[in-house]
């Protein structure tokens, strides 16, 4: 077990390193500098700015310097979008907004998706099952921005009499959270319910369910205590990366609802060529996702003791 954990941690560190290097070189390969704006600064200004932010040194030196600073949790300062403000500070003010929306979204996705999946499996072949299947298939076929924009259009004044929610996101008001969370959680909800259905059908056909029935246990006990517990393993596999991704911000949802979250900021930092900000957000988000995956992998063992981690966890 210890060996496995160590191996996985090492793997995570390597992955993070790869992501850092990839981001660094990709970012620097893009033609254009962060100093381009409406009025082009003079050569001397650019040279001075490059020197100030250390952009005149060879790339490998820059990378080394960056890694060294990173070891002290110093992400550098933003050089364009919020000039000279530490990147870490920017991230830490924006992450809570993204995270709160993501957490609500994933919570409703689990609370609705898993029971719906159970229901579909339990009533297999009836109209309930068919209806849920249609909804979920449509749900996973609609890109996030379609759902988000449709909701935005319908409930913020596009349809007469349905203006329930504000168009502009305001932090702290409960009403502003409804639509973004609904849009963000819809896809995971549909996906989860499909996954749960398949896993439940698998579990229901097992011998131990027959035994439980033969013992005369109540249906409720069989479904929730015996079948669901075993069906949850594939569901957790999906949830790990999804939780991380949703918490970090639906890029699309934040853009559509103009939420000042990390996802939207990441997108605009790329187009603004704010190098330290791109690096900072990428590393932060990547580290978060990688750590979440790691935790989920290790949690397997707790959920299902049959899984032998030392043999690759399969």
């Amino acid at each position, binding site marked *: 077990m210890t060996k496995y954990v160590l191996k996985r941690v090492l*793997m*995570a560190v*390597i*992955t993070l390193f*790869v*992501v850092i290097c*990839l*981001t660094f070189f*990709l*970012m620097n*390969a*893009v*033609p*254009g500098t962060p100093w381009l704006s409406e009025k082009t600064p003079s050569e001397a200004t650019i040279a001075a700015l490059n020197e100030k932010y250390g952009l005149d040194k060879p790339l490998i030196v820059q990378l080394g310097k960056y890694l060294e600073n990173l070891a002290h949790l110093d992400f550098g300062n933003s050089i364009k979008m919020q000039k000279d403000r530490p990147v870490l500070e920017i991230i830490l003010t924006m992450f809570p907004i993204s995270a709160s929306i993501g957490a609500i979204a994933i919570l409703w996705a689990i609370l609705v998706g898993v029971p719906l999946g159970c229901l579909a499996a339990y009533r297999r072949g009836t109209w309930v099952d068919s209806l849920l299947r249609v909804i979920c*298939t*449509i749900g*996973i*076929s*609609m*890109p*996030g*921005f*379609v759902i988000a*924009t*449709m909701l*935005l*259009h319908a409930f913020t*004044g*596009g349809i007469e009499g349905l203006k329930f929610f504000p168009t502009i996101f305001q932090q702290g008001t409960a009403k502003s959270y409804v639509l973004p969370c609904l849009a963000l959680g819809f896809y995971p909800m549909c996906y989860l319910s499909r996954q749960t259905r398949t896993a439940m*059908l698998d579990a229901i056909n097992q011998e131990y369910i027959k035994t439980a029935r033969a013992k005369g246990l109540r249906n409720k006990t069989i479904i929730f205590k015996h079948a669901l517990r075993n069906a949850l393993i594939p569901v957790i596999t999906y949830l790990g990366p999804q939780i*991380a*991704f949703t918490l970090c911000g639906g*890029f*699309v949802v934040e*853009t*559509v609802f103009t939420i000042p979250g990390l996802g939207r900021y*990441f*997108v605009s930092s*790329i*187009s603004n060529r704010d190098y330290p900000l*791109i690096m900072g957000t*990428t590393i932060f*988000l*990547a580290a978060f*996702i*990688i750590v979440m*995956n790691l935790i989920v992998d290790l949690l397997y063992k707790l959920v299902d003791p049959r899984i032998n981690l030392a043999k690759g966890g399969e």
Partner: protein
Amino acid sequence: MAEKKMKRPIGSLRPDVDDILSWNDLPENAFEPASTEEKESFIQDRESVSYWKDAWRRLKKNKVAMVAMVIVILIGLFAFVGPFIVPYSYDQVISGANNIHPWHYSLEDQAKISAYIEEHTGTANLSPDEAVAQAEAEAAARGETLSAVDAAKIRAAAKANQGKGEENVTQDDAVKALGIKAKPFGYTNAELERMAAGESVFPHVFGCDTQGRDIMVRTMIGARVSMIVGICCAVIVLVIGALYGSISGYCGGKVDAVMQRIVEVIYTIPEVLVILLMGSTLKPILEEFQNSGDGPLQNLVTLLGANLISIFLTFGLLYWVTMSRLIRGQILQLKQQEYVTAARALGAEGGRIIKRHLLPNCIGQIVTTTFLQIPSAIFTESFLSFLGMGVSAPMTSLGSMCSDALGGLNTYPYRLFIPAAILSLMILCLNLFGDGLRDALDPRLKK
């Protein structure tokens, strides 16, 4: 002969002398080629069913998959044949067609409407200040205050409307009061006059956008871009994944270990982040390369477009991992089979065994996974385009059309709904057909 062999005591090693002797008694024509009649009688009663025929038979029974297939083919025709039928091109700016709706009023009705408006408002149009004042009054009636941004928007709209008789704030009221019904499809006034003169004019079925470009053609081109991206990405993923997976699985040992570590690292990279990053960084790099010279490679980039290539590269680099894992797993199972040992004993080389024996035996899974890659690629491409990192203007895609439509969502909701509906329908049908394909090609998986 067969009967004689049956008589042999089972397990005996003694050569059957009678049998060997009887070899000499073979009739003289024993080695002559069989006549057609003899061949006919040899063929079984039922026609032999090949793997693909069998799969097709199963697929045909799956009604959902067949309907999905028909819809996909229709969308394909719409996307690839449509632009040749419609006489407009996706970047053609039609004069006077700015913001026309997918419906129109005939010239007489338009005259009636403007007369009505003139009659009821005195002046044909509100001046910008009047429009703002009116909007403020409306907002106050609703208990809200008009923000400065909205006021500026109204002012600009009123300014733009000045001098245009038929596009008026109260046009809708006039239409309602006069009981005029709108006719389908959009036409500009110039086109309506030409039609009145007896010419036939192709209608703007979905109307036109802010710059006066035909939305239907743009939707067709967008759907085409999506389909091309989907198919090309699936092929790239298939080629890289199949090569990598089969080599890794077949070689095993240290080669496999190293190759699998690489796969694991790529697998754990948060893909959406890297896709966003690569989508936006590769494009300018490729554009610079495209402008750097006139070699054959540069021409290739120009032909395909820097946008599309950057999307292909992104996909090629990240999404082959799942495919390679799947194929490796299959190969690991299959390579233990006797026929592989037999092929190896006969002196076949690794490449031949992979190509002739291993890959054909997991073809069902490969086809299904490749096919299901298409909707997922379309999904991702639309996401990139929506965020403004996919294809760039004047080229369009369904995703970027949706994000363009966000600006005037309340006035022109169909600009969002049309591309969004086609995109969702396309992904839905591809998914459904892919599921049907999986059930048909791999009946073991079906429960």
